[in-house]
């Protein structure tokens, strides 16, 4: 399993403590100076809700607050691995990150369409929902494509004995991520047994983005939607299309965060 960068792991441990000095958090982050530009770029992005680009980590922390900063650090920590190509899934460099970004945006649009406020925890979990593909990718390289009428998890189960949702949960546990985040990722394919709604949001958002080909990979858009989840969110065809329209617009505006972008 890929390790979490040491600076990120240390920072997340500090942020998880009830009382922590800001200076200690900043020192932990600055122990890896190569990471700072990436964190500031995320922190300054309109996608993250920022209206001004912070000049330094102290300003970023002040702008976001501890809770949102924790989530940004978790995403920034995963970005180096999420940008890697995953040949077993037919994903080129940056495609998994771009898909994760689009799904995160879609979770927000689903909530807005339902008249609800954006949920930062759902946004964060969406960024990390497919980290399990990083673990299963090499096992899948030798595996034939799933049969035409089945979803990609059949091939995952054959090759590795688990699907990427479970693999992702195991990786997040290895990274000592909080239990709600582990559960959200573990349940995003089958959210019905889960007691909270973040997996629902990720399930729908994932389907929305895959349906237009964002992060489709070798399995294309062979993905099954749970009808119960769709009913729970009271989606109609028109509301779904509105969500998709706004997601793609926001995704396009987040061009500076995209890594793969349009294939050349």
């Amino acid at each position, binding site marked *: 399993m890929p390790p979490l960068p040491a600076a990120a792991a240390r920072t997340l441990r500090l942020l998880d403590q009830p009382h922590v000095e800001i200076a200690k958090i900043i020192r932990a982050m600055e122990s890896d100076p190569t990471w700072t530009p990436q964190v500031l770029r995320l922190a300054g992005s309109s996608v993250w809700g920022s209206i001004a680009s912070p000049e330094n980590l102290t300003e970023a922390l002040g702008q976001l607050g501890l809770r949102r900063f924790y989530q940004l650090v978790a995403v920034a920590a995963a970005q180096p691995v999420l940008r890697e190509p995953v040949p077993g899934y037919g994903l080129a460099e940056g495609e998994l990150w771009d898909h994760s970004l689009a799904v995160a945006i879609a979770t927000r649009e689903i909530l807005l369409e339902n008249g609800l406020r954006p949920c930062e925890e759902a946004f964060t979990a969406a960024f990390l929902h497919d980290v399990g593909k990083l673990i299963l990718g090499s096992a899948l390289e030798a595996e034939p494509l799933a049969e035409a009428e089945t979803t990609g998890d059949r091939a995952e189960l054959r090759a590795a004995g688990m699907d990427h949702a479970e693999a992702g949960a195991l990786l997040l546990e290895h990274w000592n991520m909080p239990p709600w985040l582990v559960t959200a990722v573990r349940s995003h394919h089958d959210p019905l047994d889960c007691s909270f709604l973040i997996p629902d949001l990720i399930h729908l958002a994932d389907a929305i983005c*895959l*349906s237009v*080909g964002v992060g489709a990979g070798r399995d294309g858009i062979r993905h099954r*939607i749970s009808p119960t989840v769709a009913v729970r969110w009271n989606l109609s065809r028109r509301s*779904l299309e509105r969500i998709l329209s706004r997601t793609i617009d926001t995704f*396009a505006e987040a061009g500076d965060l995209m890594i793969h972008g349009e*294939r050349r």
Partner: protein
Amino acid sequence: MMAIRTHVGREGLRTVGISEMRISQVKGEVLATYSLGSCVALSLYDPVIGAAGLIHCMLPQASIDPEKARRTPAMFVDAGVQTLLDRISAMGSSRRSLIAKVVGGANVFDDRGMFRIGERNYATLRKVLWKNEILIAAEDVGGTKARTMYVSVATGRVILRSGTDQVEL
């Protein structure tokens, strides 16, 4: 690598992104659009005026957001395809000489049908083309494949890629 691209350097490749359209009369160019899932792409080629057009539409009907359709008609099949046809006509193309090819319109597995946007995109596209008296010369639509489409401006040839598979349409 595909036959069209071996004749064109990277400088000749023109990407048409999601919700975009492009018409070219530059013979050295290849129009390309990537990762079509439920979206539909329409290529138009007029050998008389030597023009090729390509559009990548995401949603079937502009009525869900008329203001957006005014700004970005190519997002919607009905508004976008009509705009593409009007623009290529304005360049001197006649309906009779246009060769139309369609790619995309895939669907995720959805028993309730709500997520079958690809089907709705394709159905709307057929209606718009029918209204404009244009027949589809070739197509590769439906299923669950993610497709990429290349159109040669010089010849009008269309190459379709999906995964490692590549065919001429």
